[in-house]
């Protein structure tokens, strides 16, 4: 089993994701330069955080036209796992692999802080190791994380259990105060219809070791590994 961490020219959380996968968890992992077209070596891909092309124009808008993205579409079609973290999420939205779009944070500022998240669906390949309804602590760091989609799209996401992570308060309620960026319905992470693509604004790779103040994020990666190992059904 091999993970690929895609490196766009302005990615800056690529080495963080790589470190967690390779050094902390110990799974096979390689960097994938954005001009690469052959992804056949990999079972899972990470689109890491950062500022892929300076985030000029719109976050993720320019990265979507990187050569690697053609292959990412195919990769997704084949049912392999793709996780887009922060800027990676924004790229997935721009690429149409996930529905909706990102607006600037309603606080009009970059926000770097810890947030509480509720794991709303534990039947995905990314969350199968969490307890249903578990509240976890994970950092965010973004300027455009205000998730937007048309109401009917949101309803469909909710209905199909595709809202996987939500900003909540310490007791698990999706309150206004717990929402750091104005995201529709406190949405922090969603999957595609098939369930093999997860986009999330929070950074699980920043909380996978206790020395960094918590390790709630580690199980996202461990869940992916487990699903790949057991070949568990990728849809739910």
């Amino acid at each position, binding site marked *: 089993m091999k993970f690929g961490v895609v490196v766009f020219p302005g990615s800056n959380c690529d080495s*963080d994701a790589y*470190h967690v996968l390779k050094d902390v968890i110990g799974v096979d992992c390689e960097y994938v330069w954005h001009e690469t077209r052959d992804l056949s070596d990999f079972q899972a891909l990470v689109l890491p955080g950062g500022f892929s092309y*300076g*985030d000029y124009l719109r976050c993720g808008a320019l990265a979507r036209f990187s050569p690697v993205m053609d292959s990412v579409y195919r990769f997704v079609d084949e049912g392999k796992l793709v996780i887009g973290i922060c800027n990676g999420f924004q790229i997935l939205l721009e690429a149409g692999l996930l529905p909706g779009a990102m607006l600037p944070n309603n606080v009009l500022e970059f926000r*770097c802080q810890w947030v509480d998240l509720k794991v709303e669906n534990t039947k995905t390949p990314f969350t199968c190791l969490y307890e249903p309804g578990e509240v976890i602590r994970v950092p965010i760091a973004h300027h455009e994380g205000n998730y937007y989609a048309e109401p009917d799209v949101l309803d469909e996401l909710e209905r199909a259990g595709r809202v996987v992570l939500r900003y909540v308060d310490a007791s698990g309620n999706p309150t206004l105060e717990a929402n750091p960026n104005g995201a529709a319905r406190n949405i922090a992470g969603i999957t595609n219809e098939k369930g093999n693509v997860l986009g999330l604004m929070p950074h699980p790779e*920043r909380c996978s070791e206790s*020395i960094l103040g918590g390790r709630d994020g580690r199980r996202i990666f461990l869940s992916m590994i487990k699903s790949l190992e057991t070949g568990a059904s990728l849809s739910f």
Partner: protein
Amino acid sequence: MADISQTAPWREMGLRDSEYELIKARLGREPNYTELGMFAVLWSEHCAYKHSKRLLRTLPTKGPGVLVGPGENAGVVDIGDNLACAFKIESHNHPSAVEPYQGAATGIGGIVRDILAMGARPVVLLDSLRFGPPDDPKTRFLFGGVVSGIAGYGNCLGIPTVGGEVFFAKPYAGNPLVNVLCGGIMKHEDLHRGGAYGVGNVVMVVGHSTGRDGIHGCTFASDVLDEDSESKRSNVQVGDPFMEKLLIEACLEMMACGAVVGIQDMGAAGLTSSCAETAARAGTGLVIDVGKVPMREEGMNAYEVMLSESQERMLLIVGSDKVDEVKRIGAKWGLHAAEIGRVTDSGNLEVLHNGNLEASIPVSLLAMGAPEYTPGAREPEYLRKTRELKDESVRTPEFSEMKEILLELLASPNIASKEPVFRQYDYMVRTDTVEGPGRGAAVVRVKGTKKGLVFTTDCNGRLIYLSPKSGAAWAVTEAALNVAVTGAKPLAITNCLNFGSPENPEVFWQLKEAVRGMGEACQALETPVTGGNVSLYNESDGVAIYPTPIIGMLGLLEDIEKRITPGFKSAGDLVAVLGKVWGDVRSLSGSEYLEVVHGMVAGDPREPDLELARGIIEVLNEGAREGVFSSAQDLSEGGLLVALAESCIHGEGGARGCVMSPKALGCGGREGIRADAMLFGESNTAVLVSFPANCEEQVSHICRRQNVPLSVIGRVQSSALAVETCGGLRVLEVPAEEIAQAYSRGLEDSLKS
């Protein structure tokens, strides 16, 4: 072009008549216009340190760990395991005063390239900021722009901004300070230097194209701010952080493949300074053709290309057989990597434009020939007044007022939490930030080792204003104690001397005294100066800023798991002061308390007790190794009571309060002791610690060995901060929530009101 000696264009360029005469004499001829421009930028105060060089030479710069001292792009310090840390602080004050967002952003860009030039990967940033009063609309504009500029640029680079300072005071109203520190890590063998070595080697420009932006930026930085500054705005440079990120990755790759003989960032004075300095360091010459420099605007002449301060560019000296490799890496990252000339043995910087010789100047004259000035120095008038601080000049508040005072101090923007600032910075990227902003000095792990690097910036301009020598010594001492409370050993400093016009004898006296105080403290604490930056002419409308020599300090934790943190850990732990708390009116000199509560900026701060400070550092180091301390916190703005409050704020679980009695500090009987000075006095060489009661013997043993007074002053409790008098009377009790509220809302509230 008209005869140069008739039109005297050097005056506009910022050169004195005498300097022009010197150039003419040393050159043996009249310089042409391009040459004159090159002299003007390199002989500006910003580049040539004309007024400060003599003083800087007096600073201690050597130490066993110093691999590279001042003179290169950044200092480099050994951190063991065959690793080294490059670090340096730099100012971008004037550009930020005029265009705060871009000024601050390009300030980050510049210091990052300095660290990159040493061969290190930049891994941390700290920002040290000074503004006018927060209720001034101009301050809000500057503050907002500067903070978002740092965020906009630094976040994009993926270099965490892990710490810094923000301080508000009137003298900075027209002239804010924006100082940025960058630290980087490298293996010893990756160390690079900014020298144009090897005759025949190729000179290359890597990174952004060159435009007309920022021409004469460093001359601008060497002038006072006035109404004209607005019109000098064409000097504004726009940062492109994405390009800088590419530049970092590309240059590291170019260096890793062994192609790079010498490397230098292009900061102030662009191509002129990078060419002159690299050649001067190597004792060589250069011939370059500016026609080969990638340009973004049409019709640029040699003068413009040589003086442009377009951002995100590096100068590389490359072995001729490696040029293709460098070009290949440049192309991979989508960057220009252009061959523009060669290293020669002529000792001259020869500038061609499409083959025509436009300038030819000995590099030694250009880079090192600027005159040095020792202006007159005179003790400032105002000191006679400010030194007068008598017991009776400050009313001692009743105990019933102390709670309000404490909350007022906690909410004071200089003490309150800076979270509204640092939450805009990505301080976690790279997953090495173990103690981020808001928790004292920053602690960053070094992956692959057990080590941690500790960074802090410190300087209280108010103290320097009242006594430049002891104030500067305090800045060093505070930085060292800040580092040491994590359990780390202070290794070395970098500094940025922000002062007014050196041509004013009172300002020059401040500068001289401050350098003396800094030097003595660095000597005593064995933290050599490895580099820094001088920013003079920080004045507006005839008002100079508080003299502000900002200290950036690097410390090393041998075992990051054994670090000490600022918050209380468990109820019942003993709370103690290591060192000495004066408790008299003099210790209120320049304190936040005196300004906020009594509206006074006065007093004559004592010098720090450096011998004692050394002892305290030893105690903390030893205590950390032995794991005896539960928490440690230095005393700075707000004094002992604010330090206690901070330990409560950072306290864990059921340890968010404490009860203390100043008895052990000797409050009874001693002459001149006052409650407010005991609680809020600042010039104390002391830190606050807590430890389990059963460690008391061990702690006092360590303290005795280091000759450090230990005074147990109280106990950690669950949820309130209380003070008892010597007689055991409870005179103050503040619930933890009230403390946390005041502290967390203070800054935002003061910017809003």
